[in-house]
């Protein structure tokens, strides 16, 4: 009887440990959250996109990938319509950042995303892919 109880206890502990480890791994991944900080340098230097701050608002990967942005980082900046006009046409960031959209309109608060040449120069190396 005692041995059986012990085995069940060990089994439960093992499962708990596995769950903890699994959660731990997932949580660690959440810190990086997708592509991390992305800095676009085309057509202008430079625009910051922060995965962390967008995920923190409850957006999951499917919210943008793949309909609005491809998974591959910086692939948008090679497109000809990746500019403010494109955003005003509700493409890319403009899907949410529009007048009456989910977030502040893209023709307001410019320097909130546009970190400029100075922002680019002072960004950590990892962000400048």
């Amino acid at each position: 009887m005692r041995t059986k109880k012990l085995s069940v206890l060990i089994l439960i502990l093992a499962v708990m440990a596995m769950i903890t480890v699994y959660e731990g791994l997932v949580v660690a991944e959440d810190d990086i959250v997708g592509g991390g900080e992305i800095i676009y340098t085309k057509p202008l230097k430079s625009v910051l996109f922060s995965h962390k701050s967008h995920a923190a608002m409850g957006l999951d990967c499917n919210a943008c990938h793949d309909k609005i942005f491809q998974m591959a980082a910086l692939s948008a900046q090679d497109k000809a319509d990746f500019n403010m006009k494109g955003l005003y046409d509700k493409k890319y960031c403009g899907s949410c950042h529009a007048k009456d959209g989910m977030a502040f309109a893209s023709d307001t608060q410019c320097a909130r995303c546009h970190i400029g040449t100075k922002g680019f120069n002072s960004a950590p190396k990892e962000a400048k892919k």
Partner: protein
Amino acid sequence: MILNKIKIEGLKKEDPGIIPAMERRAFLKMGLLITGVFAGGSVLSATSIVEKAFASSGEFAEKYPYKPHYSMVIHQDRCIDCELCMTACVKTNNVPTYGYRTRVFERDDQKATERKREFIPVLCNQCNNPPCVLGCPTKATYKNPTNGIVMMESKKCIGCKTCMAACPYNARYFNEETSAVDKCDFCFNSRLSKGEKLTACAEACPAKCRVFGDLSDSGSEVYQAVHNLEKTVWVLRPDAGAKPNVFYMKG
């Protein structure tokens, strides 16, 4: 004041024009004071800018002494520090790497709501009461009598650097190649005198942040911006008394 009688070359005294209702001005001034002061410059209503900016103090000037009266309005909230203006300026005017004619500053305010950073482009303000022109011993720098641009005649520059010390806007630097002080001339030598209508920086800006035009033309964008009582317009360092010709606004 005696100084008002001293002739600064190129600076003409304009006729006092029609003055709008004193009561309306006073009311507006009061309203703007209540609305608040913006960091980086005192709030000036459009009418008081014109009063303070031009040579005849205390009177609203309908006429400006220069034709065209070149001026620039900078929409500070639109600047994104792409620095294409700086690149264009350097290329157009052969500015050496150790100097600059125009520059973009960065200002953070962690207490601000929403957006916490702004960029401020600066350049020579082509002042109406320029301390550099006042102090130059050889008239190497002077106000162009036609358009009011503060010009450099490099051959006369002795390199005493008084103008550099005098300028409240750090607009000047010493160019080793020409052995003279250099500064923004609104691209007069490189563009305006050759038929172009805009300065290199105004043309290069993708955000329409720099608006360049003729302040004596009531139809021009600069005139409309500066004389719009609905908008807050300011200048940098009004305390220096230089009466600048570059105006800043938001929106």
